[in-house]
């Protein structure tokens, strides 16, 4: 019985070497390699008729912590589909993103063998755990005690065998007829977090159950996976295909390998239309683009230069006309994510177009392997002008950065994953394809506007940083994890400026590529790069529930009245009557006009207080912008650049209470006042109260109504048939 023991000495130098290479290098801040914590060598056979998998795997786990570890925890996530009692099923109700589970589409996984490599059987002591809830029926987390702890720097190898039945696709993984999207399919190790990691008091396994809204948190490693299945299948997978063998029994074996990844997924279908393309760091990026990005990020040209990537798009045949759209979207994503955050380090990218009937497996992200989603309608006008396939492709590719390489904990801090990616997706889409996601038949909707649709007081009862299953509703998980984070980061960009924000995101990615950062890690990077303490910003926007709603409540402007009444004492006492005052006013008006006295009342309707500015617009087109600081300014003259977050304006005013009244006298009449005129504070829930005219103008309402009249006339014509 061979024993892959727990010796330290043999591996420790290698561990140190790996850790050394995985840290930021002086020459290139991007780490070249991930630490290899969990390595897998898997052989799996697909029975395409029975929809089952039979697999064996050797798992090697290295204890990179300073603590001995006495047990291993595994994800057995296919068991989320085992029955209606799983936590996933209870949370999702058997439906997700519009797809409903079929009556007999259950899936599960059973580990039939687990033993130390060549050694003792470990199955006897293994138990199912349910760390997130009291659901004893959930079978997605499996704890395996070891006969002896793995010492710091040591490693353990296990031989495992498993049998799995794939679910019929309705959420993420499974089969539909002869289409297979096989994700979360093998016994996968969780992440051991030593004390101090992401705020932990004591070391332990971070292993969450499979939830309706989250499923990713794993350690990096090297994967070698051999997939055997009927020869007619076209196969795509994480990593690079290193071998394909045709067997005598009519099957083929496809071997894929990839290092520095946290997961492995694959797909198979005989119907796939396989499109190959190549992203070239030379041909697909101009010298000017390299230079501009390098200058903006403060990096050298070598640091921003991109690598070549082989792109495979596996399309449904009926979507063949959209091959170029998918390739173009993938190339744009590789380009802009790579330029802005760091080059894509893998040699391949596979984009899968799910089968019709298996749309639940669309819009998913796995390392070097993403699923998109489209429809035949997008083949033709006017739907071809809706960039939804592009947006899905760009978004799922973005998860290579925010989830896969910067491997934050999606379960506990989904905003670092989905939210960062939503923010980055929007930026890439606008950069690569222009402002409009939909531009057809006169209807234009931009990616910048869509997140605002849900930006409502109703959605503000949750704090952004909440475990994915802990939000008050699934809708609030979606809004806070995606849209509100996007708006928060856009607000941060508005306050810091585009260049500083670009450097924040780049630095964060460089520093935490192939690592597991927490929210605090991001906060520290922001403080460091921006050179300011932004804890209060994140406390308000991320750590606490709350609404940002600044408003201009009142704007008035009127001529300064001439004084009237009794003035002076004794013989000098003089009475100015109303008539006198009016005559005096007329004389002054004839001589050039009296000054105007204006009042502006700004109010803070929400709990969130951020620095903002106020633009005062005067008759004749003149305007003046004041900075409203969120705190009292330092004594003496205010240097806005240092005191607040906004660039210097013509003047500044402290604003600490819930309202502020400004009184000013000016030679010209105030016509309007607007808060946050540069639209820095995207988090503001109500733009309708951000500005106000002294005299309302109904022309906008008239213009909109006129258009409405036209469409009502069409309704009348239709009704009169």
């Amino acid at each position, binding site marked *: 019985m061979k024993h892959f023991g727990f010796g330290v000495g043999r591996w420790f130098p290698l561990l140190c070497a790996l850790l050394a290479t995985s840290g930021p290098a002086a020459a290139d801040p991007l780490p070249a390699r991930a630490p290899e914590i969990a390595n897998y060598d898997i052989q799996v056979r697909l029975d395409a008729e029975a929809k089952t998998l039979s697999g064996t795997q050797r798992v090697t786990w290295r204890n990179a912590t300073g603590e001995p570890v006495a047990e291993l925890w595994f994800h057995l996530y296919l068991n989320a589909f085992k029955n209606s009692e799983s936590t996933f099923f209870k949370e999702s109700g058997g439906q997700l993103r519009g797809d409903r589970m079929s009556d007999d589409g259950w899936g599960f996984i059973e580990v039939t063998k687990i033993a130390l490599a060549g050694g003792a059987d470990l199955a006897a002591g293994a138990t199912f755990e349910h760390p997130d809830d009291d659901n004893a029926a959930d079978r997605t987390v499996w704890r395996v005690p070891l006969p002896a702890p793995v010492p710091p720097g040591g490693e353990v190898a296990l031989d495992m065998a498993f049998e799995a039945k794939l679910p019929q696709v309705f959420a993420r993984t499974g089969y539909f007829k002869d289409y297979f999207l096989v994700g979360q399919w093998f016994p996968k190790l969780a992440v051991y977090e030593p004390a101090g990691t992401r705020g932990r008091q004591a070391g332990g396994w971070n292993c969450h159950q499979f939830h309706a809204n989250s499923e990713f948190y794993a350690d990096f490693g090297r994967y070698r996976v051999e997939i055997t299945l009927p020869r007619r299948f076209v196969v795509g997978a994480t990593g690079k295909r290193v071998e394909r063998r045709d067997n005598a029994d009519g099957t083929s074996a496809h071997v894929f390998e990839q290092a520095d990844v946290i997961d492995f997924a694959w797909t198979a279908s005989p119907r796939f239309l396989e499109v190959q393309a190549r992203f070239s760091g030379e041909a697909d990026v101009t010298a000017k683009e390299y230079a501009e990005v390098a200058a903006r990020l403060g990096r050298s040209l070598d640091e921003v230069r991109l690598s070549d990537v082989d792109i495979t798009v596996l399309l449904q045949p009926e979507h063949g006309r959209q091959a170029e759209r998918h390739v173009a979207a993938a190339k744009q994503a590789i380009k802009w994510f790579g330029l802005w955050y760091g080059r894509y380090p893998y040699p391949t990218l596979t984009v899968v177009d799910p089968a019709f009937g298996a749309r639940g497996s669309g819009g998913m992200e796995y390392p070097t392997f993403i699923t998109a989603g489209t429809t035949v309608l997008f083949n033709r006008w006017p739907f071809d002008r809706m960039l939804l396939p592009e947006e899905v492709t760009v978004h799922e590719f973005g998860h290579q950065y925010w989830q896969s390489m910067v491997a934050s904990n999606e379960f506990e801090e989904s905003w670092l994953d989905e939210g960062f990616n939503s923010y980055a997706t929007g930026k890439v889409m606008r950069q690569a394809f222009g402002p409009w996601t939909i531009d057809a038949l006169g209807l*234009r909707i931009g990616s910048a506007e869509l997140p605002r649709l849900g930006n409502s007081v109703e959605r503000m009862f949750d704090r952004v940083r909440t475990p994915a299953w802990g939000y008050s509703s699934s809708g609030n998980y979606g809004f806070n994890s995606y849209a509100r984070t996007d708006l928060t980061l856009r607000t941060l960009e508005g306050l810091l400026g585009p260049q500083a924000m670009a450097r924040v995101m780049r630095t964060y990615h460089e520093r935490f590529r192939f690592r597991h950062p927490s929210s605090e890690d991001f906060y520290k990077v922001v403080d460091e790069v921006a050179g300011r303490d932004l804890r209060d910003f994140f406390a308000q926007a991320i750590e606490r529930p709350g609404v940002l709603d600044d408003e201009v409540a009142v704007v008035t402007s009127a001529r300064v009245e001439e004084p009237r009444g009794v003035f002076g004492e004794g013989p000098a006492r003089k009475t100015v009557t109303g008539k006198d005052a009016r005559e005096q006013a007329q004389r002054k008006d004839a001589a050039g006009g009296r000054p105007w006295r204006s009042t502006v009342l700004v109010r803070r309707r929400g709990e969130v207080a951020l620095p903002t500015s106020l633009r005062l617009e005067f008759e004749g087109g003149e305007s003046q912008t004041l900075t409203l600081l969120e705190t009292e300014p330092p004594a003496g003259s205010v240097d806005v650049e240092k005191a607040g977050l906004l660039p210097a304006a013509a003047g500044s005013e402290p604003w600490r209470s819930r309202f502020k009244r400004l009184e000013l006298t000016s030679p010209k009449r105030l016509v*309007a006042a607007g808060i946050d005129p540069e639209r820095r504070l995207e988090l503001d829930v109500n733009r309708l109260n951000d500005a106000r005219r002294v005299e309302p*103008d109904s022309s906008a*309402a*008239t*213009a909109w109504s006129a258009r409405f009249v036209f469409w009502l006339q069409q309704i*009348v*014509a239709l009704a009169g048939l």
Partner: protein
Amino acid sequence: MLLHATAAGLRAISRHRRLVLVLWAFGLALSLAATFPLWRALAAAIGPLPHADSLSFSAEIFADLVELRPGLMTGLGAAAASTFGLGVLVGIVFAGGALEVLTSRDDRPFAHRFGRGAFRFFGRFLRLGAITCAIALPLAALVGGPLFALSTRLRRDSGSEWLAIGTWGAALLAIGLVVLVVLLVQDAARVRIVTTDERRVRKALRPALSTVWRGKAAWLGTWMLNALALLVLFAAYLAVAEAIPAGRALFLLLLLQQAFVLSRCGLRVALLGSEVALVEALTPAPPPTPVEPLPAHPPDSAPEPPLA
């Protein structure tokens, strides 16, 4: 017959331009009335906004209106729904008046003939509409329902996107065809009611159905030509409307919109004119009234009746 009907439709437009104007005015008045409360609400909501784009639609402001003024959006939907309901009634009034104008031969003033037809046939057309609705809805459900169910099943089980979408499209088409045929029969019945002054609505339906059935190609062809013309007009409208720059050209856009609506009203009058011609052409001539044959020669022997 198709050419004859089309020519009759075109003649109807050229001879009865006032009908087109009346239809346009009805629609405009109704739409303006329904829009007025909306305009007031909008003016209150966005009037104070200096950044409300006064001359083009602002999706950003619209998004906030949807989110923050749900009442406004509900009002918008209510305005559309009530306009549709009133539009049905206006359509009935107009059909009576227009058919009277198109079929009557007297030389009374236009307003007299239109008003006479509108009020005289309103009740009958209302009953006719109710009956056609009662026929069309279950018929459409009968035809479209199974196809929709099949489409849903195909979407879930077949794996063929084209098949599922095609079946869904076929369901829509079938429902559209049922509704169209029922509407054409209703139009034929309306013409018969106006030309024969038939008071029993149900009695007018059977010959109307027979008229449409006998000339089904001509009826469908006429309708399709009309629909095609409308489609071409709409495409032209969209092309020109997109070319009008946002900003001060709003007035041009409004003019263009009303030109399109007027053209649409013209097409409606043309369709009515064509349908009158089709009913006339397809209605069998009444059998000749039997006439007592006159004796060729009075019998010689018959004595002359005595003069009173």
